[in-house]
C-alpha cells in the first residue's frame, strides 16, 4: 500500500506590539509574574476590551504579503472554555469572518522545485496565560502576563505533502513575519508556535484520512521529526487494521515521539458567538492601500533585484536576503560605496558573518557601522590599501572607533605602489628564492604566487599585489633576456 501524507500547519505568531490586544498593559517578555496584567487581562468583573490598532495593521500587512484578501468587515468571536490560564473563561478570537482570508505562499524545496502552499485564513486573537506545573507541590501556578498578548493565527490549507515541505513552509512564514517586522519570531520565548494537523491516505484516495493534531513544535527540526514520527505511527496503525483517533497529541523532543495529550477542553464545542463587547471591525480601502505601499520589499523580490540590478551572484543574493537586517546592512553599506556591489557582498558574507558567528551576535550588535565598512571597501577599491591590509584593518575596527582614513594615516598602512620600492623587494626575493625563479622559468607558473607572497611579506603586506605580480614577471623576463 502506498501512502500519501497530508499536512496542514497552524502557526500562532505573537505580534510585536507594545501593549496587549485588548488592554494597555505591556507585552514585555520576561517580567515578574503577573506584573503585566491589567484588570482587563485578569478578567475582572465589569471590564471591557478595546482593540489595539497596531495589531490590526500588522495582520493586514501579513495578509497583503501573502496575497490574501483582507476582509473589510471582520468580527471578533468568543471561544468559550474553562482553563485557569484563560481568565475570562473565553478567548476573544475570530471565527466566521476573520480579518485575512485566502492567500498563498511559495516555498522552495531542496531539489530546487517550487510549490505554492495555500493559506486558508489568518485571524487575530488573544494569547492565554501560562500554567507552571513544577513551581508548587500540589498546585499549578498561574502567570497571566502573557494573557492578552496579540496573536495572529495563520492556518494553511492541507497542501503540504511531506515533513520537508512543512519545515520549508514554517521557515518561510518565520522569515516573512520577521521581514515584515510584525514579530520577532523567537521560538524559545514562545513568539512563534506551530501545530501540525497530520493525516495519511492511500495514494489516489480523494477523501482525507482522520487527522491528529500535534502540538508543542518549537523548531524547524522538530516539525520534521514530529511529522515523520506521526506519519509512521499512523501508517503502522492503519496497516494493522486499527483506526486513527482524532485527537490532540503532544510532541516530546526528548523521546522524539508524539503522545496523546490529556485535553484541556473536554468538549470541543467552543460555542462560538460574536463578542457583544466588540463591534464589527471595518477597514477601508484607503487604509489597506496605504499599508500595501508601506510593505517592505520581500525576499523573492529582493533577491531578484540584487541579481538583476546589482549584478550579484544568485547564491550570494539569497544569502544576504535571508535575514532582513543583514540585507538592510548590505544596502546601507552600498549607500556609502556603491561601485562594486559584489565586493561589498563578499565582505559581508565572509568577514562580517565570521565575526557574527564567532561572537554569536546579531548584525544589530555588530561593531562596525555600514558607513565605516563602506569607507574601508572604497579604500581597497581605490588602491589606497591592499586587501590583505584591509583585513587587518577590519579586525582593528572592531575595537577602534577611529575613521578608516585616520587609522591608515596613523599606522602608515598606505599601499606601496611606486615601482622602485617594490622592485627593491622583488630583486631581494628573486635572489633569495632563485630556485623558485628557475621553477617558474621552467614552466611552473603557480610558483609565482609564492614569490608574490614573499614580496608581500617583506613589504609588510603593503605592496599592491597586482603590481608585485607584474613586476616580478617583468624582472624575471628582463633578467633572462640578458
Amino acid at each position, binding site marked *: 500500500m502506498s501512502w500519501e501524507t497530508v499536512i496542514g500547519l497552524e502557526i500562532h505568531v505573537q505580534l510585536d506590539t507594545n501593549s496587549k490586544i485588548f488592554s494597555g498593559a505591556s507585552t514585555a517578555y520576561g517580567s515578574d509574574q503577573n506584573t503585566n496584567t491589567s484588570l482587563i487581562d485578569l478578567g475582572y*468583573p*465589569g471590564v471591557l476590551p*478595546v482593540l489595539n490598532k497596531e495589531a490590526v495593521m500588522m495582520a493586514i500587512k501579513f495578509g497583503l504579503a501573502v496575497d490574501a484578501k483582507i476582509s473589510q468587515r471582520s468580527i471578533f468571536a468568543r471561544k468559550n472554555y474553562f482553563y*485557569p490560564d484563560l481568565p475570562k*473563561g*473565553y478567548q476573544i478570537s475570530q471565527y466566521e469572518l476573520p480579518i485575512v482570508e485566502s492567500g498563498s505562499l511559495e516555498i522552495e524545496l531542496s531539489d530546487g522545485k517550487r510549490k505554492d502552499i495555500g493559506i486558508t485564513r489568518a485571524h487575530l486573537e488573544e494569547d492565554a496565560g501560562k500554567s507552571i506545573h513544577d513551581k508548587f507541590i500540589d498546585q499549578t501556578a498561574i502567570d497571566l502576563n502573557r494573557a492578552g498578548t496579540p496573536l495572529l493565527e495563520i492556518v494553511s490549507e492541507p497542501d503540504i505533502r511531506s515533513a520537508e515541505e512543512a519545515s520549508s513552509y514554517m521557515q518561510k512564514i518565520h522569515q516573512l513575519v520577521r521581514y515584515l517586522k510584525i514579530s520577532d519570531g523567537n521560538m524559545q520565548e514562545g513568539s512563534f508556535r506551530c501545530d501540525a494537523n497530520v493525516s495519511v491516505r492511500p495514494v489516489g484516495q480523494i477523501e482525507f484520512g482522520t487527522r491528529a493534531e500535534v502540538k508543542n513544535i518549537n523548531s524547524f527540526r522538530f516539525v520534521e521529526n514530529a511529522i515523520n514520527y506521526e506519519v509512521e505511527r499512523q501508517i503502522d496503525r492503519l496497516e494493522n487494521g486499527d483506526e486513527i483517533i482524532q485527537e490532540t497529541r503532544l510532541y516530546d523532543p526528548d523521546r522524539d515521539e508524539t503522545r496523546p495529550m490529556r485535553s484541556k477542553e473536554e468538549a470541543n464545542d467552543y460555542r*462560538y458567538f460574536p463578542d*457583544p463587547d*466588540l463591534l464589527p471591525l471595518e477597514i477601508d480601502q484607503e487604509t489597506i492601500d496605504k499599508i500595501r505601499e508601506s510593505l517592505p520589499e520581500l525576499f523573492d523580490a529582493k533577491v531578484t533585484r540584487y541579481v538583476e540590478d546589482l549584478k550579484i551572484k544568485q547564491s550570494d543574493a539569497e544569502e544576504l536576503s535571508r535575514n532582513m537586517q543583514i540585507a538592510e546592512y548590505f544596502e546601507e553599506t552600498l549607500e556609502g560605496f556603491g561601485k562594486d556591489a559584489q565586493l561589498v557582498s563578499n565582505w559581508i558574507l565572509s568577514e562580517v558573518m565570521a565575526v557574527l558567528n564567532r561572537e554569536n551576535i546579531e548584525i544589530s550588535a555588530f561593531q562596525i557601522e555600514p558607513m565605516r565598512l563602506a569607507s574601508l571597501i572604497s579604500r581597497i577599491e581605490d588602491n589606497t590599501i591592499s586587501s590583505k591590509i584591509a583585513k587587518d584593518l577590519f579586525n582593528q575596527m572592531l575595537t577602534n572607533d577611529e575613521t578608516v582614513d585616520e587609522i591608515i594615516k596613523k599606522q602608515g598602512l598606505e599601499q606601496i605602489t611606486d615601482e622602485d620600492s617594490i622592485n627593491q623587494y622583488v630583486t631581494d626575493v628573486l635572489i633569495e628564492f632563485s630556485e623558485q625563479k628557475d621553477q617558474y622559468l621552467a614552466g611552473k607558473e603557480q610558483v609565482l604566487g609564492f614569490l608574490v607572497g614573499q614580496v608581500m611579506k617583506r613589504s609588510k603586506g603593503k605592496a599592491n599585489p597586482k603590481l608585485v605580480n607584474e613586476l616580478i614577471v617583468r624582472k624575471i623576463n628582463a633578467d633572462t633576456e640578458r
Partner: protein
Amino acid sequence: MKRHTVKEIQSMIKSKSASAEEIYELYNKRIRQMNDSINAFISIEGDEFDLDTKQADSEVRGVPYALKDIFCSEGDQTTCGSKMLSSFISPYDATVVKNLREKGSIILGKTNMDEFAMGSSNETSFYGDVSNPWDLERTPGGSSGGSAAAVAAGMAPIALGTDTGGSIRQPAALTGITGLKPTYGRCSRFGMIAFASSLDQAGILSISAEDAAIFLEHMAGFDQKDSTSSMETVPKYTDFLSNDLSGKVVGLPKEFFDGSLDTRFQELVTDSIHEYEKLGLKFKDISLPNIKYSVPTYYVVAPAECSSNLARYDGVRFGHRSTEGNDLDAFYKQTRKEGFGQEVKRRIITGTYVLSAGYYDAYYLKAQKVRQLINQDFLNAFEEVDVIMGPTTQQSAFKLGEKVDDPVSMYMNDIYTISSNLSGVPAISHPIGFVDELPFGLQIIAPHFKEHDLLNITHRYQMATDWHLRTPEICRGID
C-alpha cells in the same frame, strides 16, 4: 418625612440652608432606621465624608445617591447580590461612578439586587429579599429592587440602577417612582458587572424626571474604555424639560392594549392619556407586530451572553473559592455550585444550550434575527409617531414568594419592557396612580438618543399631577 428631590437638595446646598454633610447624615440616619425592614442596602458607606473643593461648581456637588451593587466602586464591597462576590472589594470605579465622583456626588451605600441582575422581584439575592416600601410583604420588583425601594422610602434622593430587560423601569413602576433606561451606549458599561452585554444599560431611579435629567447629564457620555459606548454628544437635558408638548404624537401599540390588562390598571392608563391630551399630546394607534416575540428572543439572547460573561467567576483570582475539590474540574464545579444561586444557574444552563453546536442556528442566530425585526418595528413606528406609550407592567407589586416557583410566569412580567432593550431605544416609567394602595406606572419609549423627549414629557406630566410625590406610609414618623 420629606423625600427631597435632587433639585431641592441643590438649592439647599446653594442657599446654604443645609450643608452637604448634614444632608449626607440625614440620609445615613434614615438608612440605619429603615434598612432592617426594607433591606434595600447590602452595604452602607462607612467612609469619612470627603468633599473636594475642586468640584465647587458642579451641579451635583454634595448630592448623595444610592448605587446598585452591580457597579464597581473603588475600595467598596461590590457583590452583585451574589455569594460569588461577597468578598470582592473592587480595585476600581466604574466610569459612571467615576464621573459622578469627580462631580462631587457621594455614594450612600450599595443597594440590593437580584443576583447578577437576573430577576424581576429582588428575590434571588444572596443578601435576602427586598421589601416594597408600600407593602413590606410585597416585592419592589427587580433586578434594581434595592435602588427603587431606597428612593421610594426616602433613604436616598436618587439611585443608579441597570436595565437589561426592564430592571429599572419595572421596579420604578412597582414602587411609585420614576425610572429611566437611556439608549444603549449612552452611558459607559465599563465597571458595570456584565449580565447581557448587548442589552445592559446603566440608568436612574428618582422621584422626578427633573432629577433624572440632572443626573443623566453628569453620568452619560463617551468612554474610550467601552467599545460599545456612543460618541453622540450629551445634551443639557434640563434645558428641554419645560418644552411645550403640543404637536407631539404618541403611538399606542395595539399589542400593549389587547385587553389583557386588569380594568383598574387600564383606567389609570386611560386617565394618564387624558392628562397628556390636556398637555397637548396627540394619540394614534400603531402596531408593533413582532413584539410578542420579544420575551422568547430575550430569553435566548440574554442567557447566551450571560453564560459567557459569568464564566470568569472561577475563584482563581477573586471571589468565592471552594475549599473542596482536589482536581481542577471538581474545583471549578464546586466553586460555581456554591457561589451561584438557582436562577443564575438556570440561565447559564439555558445560555450554554442555545449556543451549543447544532443549536446555535436554531436558537441564538434565530433570536438575533427576530431581534432585528423587533428593532425594525420600532423604526417603522417612529416614522409615524414621536414616542410610544403603554403600561410598564401587567400588574402592581405581587407578594414575595408568589412567583418564585414559576420562573416562566416571572419572565412574562417583562413583556412591555424587554423590547426596548432588544432594540436599544430609551424608555422611562413614571407613576400614574394607585390600585389598592399600590402604585402603577406608565412607560414611554422614544427613538435612539431622544432621552430629552422622555424627560420633557414626563416632567410636564409631573408638573400637572402629584402621583410621583406620594410617600409610602412607612416613611411616616421618620425624619
